[in-house]
């Protein structure tokens, strides 16, 4: 088991390296330093300003190979900084990226955390309900609703939710953010509600499929032949087995929430990581964007290693096998 986890962790580390190399190729080789500088400073910037900017942001070094000092290259610098979480300054306004991230994490989590903790039980219980009533009208109506819900663009959910709940019904403020605990909930409620609505269709459908697949297995027939009732079969046999594929999906969603919040945050004016990303896109800030992609990937990979750890706890075939 320990060997398995070590292997998985090593694989995760290799993937992180792969991501870093990919980002290097994209941001340092495909996009030349001159490009980046001109985008940051404008087309008409004087050559001296560009040269100075390149030095300031470490874009002046050789890309991959420096005969004088093999470690003094952009590649080495890129790897060193990313691995040590020393992200440097924004290409756009020279604010330290790390500071931005620290400021943004709180607001981001105030949306994604409730979204995650409410969304998962909601989707799981709806899916369990629909799967329990399989081949009845409840199931059929449920599936149709899921497909309908999935076919609506998240943009429409955001615009519709804001217009309906914020503007027409005036239940929540239309947008904005205030970290003070007394009013935080009021600002966060609308984005969380919209996020729940946008995600629930696809999730219920997926979990239902998982539950139905498990319901068709031989061991379920054995349990019924023992005399176990429907509810017991679902709770004691189907659910524990279905948790294994569900786990994978849940972990896959962790970075998905991170990116999903890009839209919610930018639209509802929440100054989190998502808004930082949108600002970076709008101001051609490659340095920040690079860091965001890297952190997203890092979260995802960490999530996968965590899934493996969770597997070893849930699935005896992995734990003991």
């Amino acid at each position, binding site marked *: 088991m320990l060997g398995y986890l070590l292997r998985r962790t090593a694989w995760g580390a290799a993937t992180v390296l792969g991501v870093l190399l990919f980002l290097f190729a994209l941001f340092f080789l495909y996009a030349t330093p001159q490009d980046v500088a001109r985008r940051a400073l404008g087309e008409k910037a004087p050559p001296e300003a560009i040269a100075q900017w390149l030095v300031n942001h470490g874009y002046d070094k050789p890309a991959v190979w420096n005969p004088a000092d093999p470690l003094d290259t952009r590649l080495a610098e890129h790897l060193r900084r990313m691995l040590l979480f020393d992200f440097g300054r924004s290409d756009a306004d020279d604010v330290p990226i790390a500071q931005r991230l620290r400021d943004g994490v709180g607001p981001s989590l105030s949306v994604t955390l409730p979204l995650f903790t409410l969304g998962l039980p909601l989707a799981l219980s709806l899916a369990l309900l629909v799967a329990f009533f*399989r*081949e009845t009208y409840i199931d059929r109506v449920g599936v149709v609703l899921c497909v309908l819900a999935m076919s609506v663009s998240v943009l429409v959910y955001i615009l519709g939710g804001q217009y309906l709940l914020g503007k027409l019904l005036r239940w929540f403020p239309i947008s904005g953010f205030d970290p003070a605990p007394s009013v935080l909930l009021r600002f966060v409620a609308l984005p969380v509600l919209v996020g729940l609505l946008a995600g629930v269709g696809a999730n219920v459908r997926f979990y239902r499929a998982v539950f139905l697949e498990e319901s068709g*297995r*031989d*061991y379920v*027939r*054995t*349990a*019924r*032949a*023992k*005399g*176990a*009732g*429907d509810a017991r079969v679902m709770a*004691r*046999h189907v659910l*524990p*087995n279905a948790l*294994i594929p569900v786990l994978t999906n849940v972990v896959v969603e962790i970075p998905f929430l991170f990116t999903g919040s890009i839209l919610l945050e930018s639209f509802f004016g929440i100054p989190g990581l998502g808004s930082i990303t949108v600002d970076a896109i709008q101001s051609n800030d490659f340095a920040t964007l690079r860091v965001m992609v890297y952190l997203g990937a890092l979260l995802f990979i960490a999530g996968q290693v965590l899934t493996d750890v969770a597997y070893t706890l*849930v*699935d*005896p*075939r992995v734990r*003991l*096998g």
Partner: protein
Amino acid sequence: MSEALLHVEGLLTSFPGARGARLPVVDRVDLAVARGEALALVGESGCGKSMTALSIVGLVPKPGRIDAGSIRMRGRELRGLPVTAMRRVRGAEIAMIFQEPATSLNPVQTAGAQVVEAITLHERVARGEARRRALALFEQVGIPDPPVRFGAYPHQLSGGLKQRVMIAIALAARPQLLIADEPTTALDVTIQAQILELLAGLARETGTAILLITHDLGVVNQLADRVAVMYAGRIVEEGTRAAVLAAPHHPYTHGLLRSMPSLAQPGERLAEIPGVVPAPDAWPPGCRFEGRCAIALAVCRAREPERTRLDGGAAVRCHAVAGESPQ
């Protein structure tokens, strides 16, 4: 014979076919199992044996359903029984073991927990008592080192041990009837013999009746008192083991016997029955075996043969045999 333990009459189980039609897979089957008796239901794959068994315990997978017939257990009609009452029948009165021990056990529960569940589903017993009884069952079904195997997960057990756990689960609530659906098909030959011996011995000890479902006449020979041969949803021949195996009447039973290496005479060529069992939507209007039968008559094509009683309690569904017999 007094009222049998299990009495099935006119059982008709169907699945939906093309354009809303219902395709029967079990077609007006009559069966009776007496107390302590072992009845073997024999036939090739796809002839409706397993579906007969699942119909009896009320576990026909959707969208299949039982359309007609009666299933009586100790005189009580099981069809139309409320869900909770049927649940009490399953396991406690009729237990079932399946073909694939590898997939029939819950992979994330220990073997012991699965046996304990089978006990506690039907009896209010303390946890320690249930555990003690499960360990005794492990002993009874010949699992070595019960305390260790009790905590083992299915993937840690061999195929033979898994099937023994399945048998322990089946026997946990002391059923009067055990339905064994191809219990040895997925096992190695040497293990097969052990499991059959175990089943025969347990049936003798506990007085449990067995409905054994198999395509393997060798298994029948080892375990069964009586034999019913099933073909394309119908029982085509039934009788005592000795009568059916030694002097089969139906050409299909003949064919099955002649294709068995273990029962063939030394030096005899193994015969095979040409063709395959027709699917329910391709059943001919006459005798369903007609297309594969070596002695088919003109009448076989036109009309389905009636059930003909023979001497010694046997019965057969064949025009050729009915024509010869005095009846």
